[in-house]
């Protein structure tokens, strides 16, 4: 009984997805629409792949972390310092980041694959659970998390309470993209262990969607990510074992996600976990408004 559950919880794609979603939740809880995540994930997968191939596994992780956070800071600077519209910034940076990722990958790639890291299932499962719980604790029980959520609900009132909104949003971005980077590392070195141009493209938007489906709550996001990852990777098994038609199997992860959205929004749960109301609001402190 334990073994199959562990296999589900330790599915490397599900773990990567969990980290991406959690990273997105932290950033969006601070009120920033995180559309650049898709480009950054694509980029960090490429960087991880070539860094691991050329230098080594540990160095690869560090390089991935540093470069991912550097890109996210460019994004955060547009939002916080230049007061650029969130959607426009995210979408246009995406295009640039896809390109930079492809360029680096194609230039430094030695072969199309690398040796995957062998890591025990309990450890992988633990990474998923622990990150979810820690993210929840940080957001809902710590001082920093309260500040982050306050910026996402009402930056003006947060500022009046003594929160430095731009600083808090920078911190949320760094925390979020640290998780995103680790997610990309797990995806590249454990799940996929190969790379071609634009590998990983689309997972960022999936993460944004699933984060939204969880109403930006880490503990709701976790089961969604696990269920999605399980159905996504074991679709062929379902097909073989139960003879489920391919079309249904392929649609299943998305249908389950939809079901979760319905459950979250149709029950009192949605009242309890309020969405970040100021999401996407271009916040400029000196504007005169009571």
């Amino acid at each position, binding site marked *: 009984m334990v073994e199959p559950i562990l296999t589900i919880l330790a599915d490397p794609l599900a773990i990567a997805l969990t980290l991406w979603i959690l990273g997105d939740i932290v950033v969006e809880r601070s009120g920033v629409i995180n559309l650049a995540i898709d480009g950054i994930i694509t980029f960090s997968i490429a960087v991880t792949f070539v860094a691991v191939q050329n230098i080594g596994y540990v160095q690869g992780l560090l390089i991935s972390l540093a470069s991912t956070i550097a890109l996210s800071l460019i994004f955060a600077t547009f939002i916080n310092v230049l007061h650029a519209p969130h959607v426009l910034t995210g979408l246009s940076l995406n295009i640039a980041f896809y390109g930079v990722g492809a360029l680096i990958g194609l230039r430094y790639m030695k072969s199309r694959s690398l040796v995957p890291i062998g890591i025990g299932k309990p450890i992988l499962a633990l990474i998923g659970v622990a990150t979810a719980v820690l993210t929840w604790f940080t957001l809902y029980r710590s001082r920093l998390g*309260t500040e982050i*959520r306050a910026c996402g609900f009402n930056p003006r*009132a947060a500022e009046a*309470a003594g929160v430095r909104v731009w600083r808090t949003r920078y911190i949320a971005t760094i925390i979020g993209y640290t998780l995103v980077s680790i997610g990309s590392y797990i995806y590249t070195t454990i799940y996929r262990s190969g790379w071609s141009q634009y590998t990983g493209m689309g997972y960022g938007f999936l993460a944004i969607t699933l984060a939204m489906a969880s109403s930006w709550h880490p503990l709701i996001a976790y089961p969604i990510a696990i269920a999605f990852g399980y159905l996504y990777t074991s679709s062929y098994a379902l097909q073989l074992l139960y003879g489920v038609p391919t079309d249904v199997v392929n649609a299943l992860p998305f249908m389950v996600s939809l079901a979760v959205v319905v459950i979250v929004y149709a029950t009192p749960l949605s009242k309890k976990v309020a969405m970040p109301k100021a999401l996407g609001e271009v916040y400029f402190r000196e504007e*005169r408004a009571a």
Partner: protein
Amino acid sequence: MNRTFIRVVDLYKRFGDVVALDGVTLDIFFNEILVVLGENGSGKSTLAKVLYGVYVPDRGKIIVDGSEARFSSPFDAKKKGFVMISQRPQLIDDLSILENIALFIGEPPSGTLAKRIEDFLKRFDIGIDVHKKVFSISYTEKQFIELAKALLINPRLLIVDEAATYLPQDLKTKFFEILRRFVSDNRAVIYITHKIPEALEIGNRFVVLRRGKVARVFNGAANPSELRHAMFGTEEYLKLVSRQLLQRLSKDSKNVLSVDKLVVLDDYGKTAVDGLSIDVRAGEIVSIVGVAGNGEKELGEAIAGLRKASSGSVKIDGFDVTKSPPSERTRKGLVYIPEDPFKEGTAVTLSIIENMRMYARERLSQDVVLDAIKKLGIVPENPAIQVSKLSGGNVQKVSISRLLLTMPKVVVAHNPTRMLDERSRALVLDILQRFSLSGGGVLLITEDVDEAVQISDKVAVMVDGRIAKLFEGGNLESFRSEIEKAMVHG
């Protein structure tokens, strides 16, 4: 001898074309409650926000304890021990009371903090569950939470920006006591208000601002007349509201607004208006007074058609409009002035004249617009200025201007004078009185008992979504204390 605590030197602040502070210099001493008075748009709130680091001044200095302090955000001001309580509660609705206070004092929202807050509130006989989300508590409770969180961090300077003006009387008395005790210990309070009696009750010294400059400083005693002259340059406006015991045509005139057994739900699905009935006849002013959060907002919105009535009916000028959209009701002769001029009363990113055209839904000549600006005393008088650049009171006046731009049969106004100074308030009440004299009906929903008894023919007290008591007759002033009692106890 008075020791100087804070010295404000030559402060300038402008918002686009609007000069909010035009060279303000003043001293704040230890152990004093300094009242800052001024008409709408005189720069009171801007001064407060500069002192609290919300705005960075264009020019000028703030000297604290003899050395210059530069605030780039409220975070810096708080480090110096400065705290501001804003005009409207600056709480985050989706966080709990505990989380809001934790945010402010910079601690995690822990159980021990919850205990400390509850103990603190108990000293003021306020029992409230601090785990409640802020959206579920009443406006008055929010205001008190603001005061409580400010006092919890023991500031050196407390800036109160019209935050206590509409507290219920008993809480206000308590709050004033706290302030007096608070300043005795090498601290200071800057108390901003436009209410002269309130200023005289609490202040040690008085500074009057006018058009962004210090008009006069009163070191020690001041009298109302002197203050009025310093604020407005005149006292003439007082005659406007001295009730002229009007010969109204009301008695047998017909109803222009009838609300019958109206039931309305609030945003969270709770019953806010609970089978309320009230009639307003042509030429009559009817006031509904109540402590905020008793269903006043929902009532106003249901009459305007912005909120669905669960049951009951609304008739305007004899027509049943219960199921009609707001536009239809406006055509039947209704004008609704919503409570919040920023979110509901104006489109703040449009100019004054664009807002007025929106209300009138027709071409307006420049003359009509300028006339409305003059009648309401909107400052600055330039109709092309964006509403978001105006001060709070002036935004409210723009919201009220719709009254002057159309020919309504009935006006429903919710707290129309809340942010207005004494003179602007008199102008607005005069406009309402003239409107009723000319045969219009007015339903004034307000928490200001003064204005209700001054201009109304009837005063209804609203508690828990119902009319708890109705007062009518020649001299409503004499019912004042009874009205206040009914507001609190039903």
